[in-house]
């Protein structure tokens, strides 16, 4: 077992870290307040090849592995959780399914624009009445001639407000329940497809999170991804990969909380000394650092499993997301405690980090769902 990064992973980490510190961090507070989508910075991430990290080079991607994806998402999220999730979604929820399940035509048609930043991607799975219960989705698709006609609503879709390419799930046969779900690539200017409400969220506020509304939307039948009825399997497969990313995002958010807290503990004085000298503060910092380290290695391990092409690594990826989310929330909580009375003002980023952290336990499968996945796997 080799704990060292490969040479390119090491370079990736250094470059992305420098880039994120220089460009992503300075805008984080402002976009959180304004909820403006950070296009300028996203375009810069595209230039660095960060929007198509695991996409093969021949389609415009960077051709890296899944641990590299995790490294990049962690570094971005450390500076700005919103930016981290925008890039994560583009990579693992949009480019990945096309790479894994797309035809050659679909890959050539959609991947280059997704990698260059010309079109961003969004993943339309969640519905108002189907959150954890994915199979309970009510959006339907029926084949009429050369088109699928899609009807329904998706909610809480990250990047939706700015995306050009959408991966959308709909039921082509409700009688077959989860075996009747299919996947479609939907372009923004599809007739019958519009955007709805822009969500006002507690955290990760600059992600253009909107509703997708399908009213007899006409999707060309070539845009079916995989086969009819494979939708649920595709969704679960994609979520397994994206959970590595979200685990990485969690580690990044937690790391930012730790960095801020260490800085604060050194600077802030009470009773004539830096509060970092107080054992209670040291207690919290030690716990935070340990939690982050453990979570990070779980993420790398899940990435390693995917790299090795292990066919079922749901348990590992669920663990990496569940654990990452849990510790990130706890680390952020401790971070606010350490900042004491200043922990809830805008003057310190810790209050935004605290708000951002909570979403990790909710999206892409709540922590409860992750635990059920893990338990079921254990009890097989």
């Amino acid at each position, binding site marked *: 077992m080799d704990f060292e990064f490969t040479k390119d992973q090491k370079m990736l980490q250094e470059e992305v870290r420098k880039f994120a510190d220089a460009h992503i961090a300075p805008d984080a507070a402002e976009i959180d307040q304004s909820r403006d989508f950070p296009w300028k910075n996203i375009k810069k991430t595209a230039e660095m090849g960060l929007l198509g990290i695991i996409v093969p080079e021949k389609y415009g991607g960077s051709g890296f592995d899944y641990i590299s994806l995790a490294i990049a998402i962690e570094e971005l999220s450390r500076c700005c959780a919103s930016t981290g999730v925008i890039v994560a979604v583009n990579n693992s929820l949009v480019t990945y399914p096309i790479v894994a399940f797309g035809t050659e035509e679909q890959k050539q048609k959609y991947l280059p624009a997704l990698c260059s930043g010309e079109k961003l991607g969004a993943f339309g799975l969640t519905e*108002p*009445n189907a959150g954890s219960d994915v199979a309970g989705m009510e959006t339907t698709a029926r084949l009429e001639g050369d088109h699928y006609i899609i009807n329904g*609503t998706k909610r809480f879709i990250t990047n939706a407000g700015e995306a050009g390419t959408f991966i959308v799930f709909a039921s082509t046969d409700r009688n077959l329940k989860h075996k009747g779900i299919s996947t479609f690539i939907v372009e923004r200017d599809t007739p019958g497809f519009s955007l*709805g*409400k822009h969500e006002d969220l507690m955290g990760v506020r600059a992600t253009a999170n909107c509703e997708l509304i399908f009213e007899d939307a006409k999707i060309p039948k070539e845009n079916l991804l995989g086969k009819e009825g494979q939708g649920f399997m595709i969704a679960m497969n994609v979520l397994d990969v994206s959970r590595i990313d979200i685990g990485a995002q969690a580690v990044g958010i937690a790391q930012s909380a730790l960095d801020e807290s260490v800085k604060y503990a050194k600077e802030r004085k009470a009773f004539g000394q830096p509060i970092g000298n107080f054992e209670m503060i040291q207690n919290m910092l030690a716990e935070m650092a340990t939690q982050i380290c453990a979570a990070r290695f779980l993420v790398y391990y899940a990435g390693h499993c995917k790299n090795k092409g292990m066919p079922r690594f749901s348990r590992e990826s669920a663990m990496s997301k569940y654990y990452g989310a849990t510790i990130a929330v706890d680390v952020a909580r401790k971070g606010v405690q350490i900042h004491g009375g200043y922990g809830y003002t805008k003057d310190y980023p810790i209050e935004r980090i605290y708000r951002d952290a909570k979403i990790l336990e909710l999206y892409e499968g709540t922590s409860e769902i992750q635990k059920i996945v893990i338990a079921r796997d254990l009890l097989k």
Partner: protein
Amino acid sequence: MDIIACIKRVPQTAEADVKIDSSGKDIVKDRLQFDMNESDTYALEEAILLKEKFSGSLTVISVGTFDAEDTLRIALAKGADNAIRIKAEDFGELDGYKTAQLLKAVIKDLKHDAIFTGCIATDDYYSQVGVTLAELLGMPHASLVTKIEIDGNTVHAYRELEGGLLEHLAMSLPALFTIQTGINEPRYASLIAIRRAAKKEIKVIGKEEINAEDIVSFSSLEKLFTPPVGERAEILSGTLDEIGTRVQGIVKEKGLL
């Protein structure tokens, strides 16, 4: 002027999960919040406003069990001078007619120029007590009153009917009014008033003073039940947006759009 207000303590069921109890004649009450019946709060406020305008005394009466004294105390804190509780537990199963008889038994011996009740109770919805009480006392009444004006010994009572019509009744005092919600803005009791009211004595009247045999009823409650779920209704749930989308879908499905 001597004014009387009749109030009732009812369970707040609007947002609660209501279940029928084992007797089949009542609801399970132990998890419910209780408060003064809504239209009674308006009736009480109208009574207090009248007392403030013409000066005099205001007595509040409630037919209820011991807990009703909390409601009577709030009424005292808001401005009533005296409070009487008629012990519901002494008179068996009550309906609107029995309640009116009990109130009459006490009120007939009190000075009363004007009596106020709420127009309807939100637990049993009988809407009987005020009007029945007026008849038993042999006095004129107006129900569902939305405005009252007093001009010497004449009272002008206004009732709002369907279609925005207003009915104007004139009568002389003493008279009884059942009050519609919205007639005024009920006040909150201030802390000092609450302190004082907490110490006041509430007169309690029961079967020693009122002969239970005199209080009769011509109907009895058979059972209380939730109506069976029909087949032609679809209950829509979810957020407003979701329901709106679904309604739009249904209307479209029925070919109405």
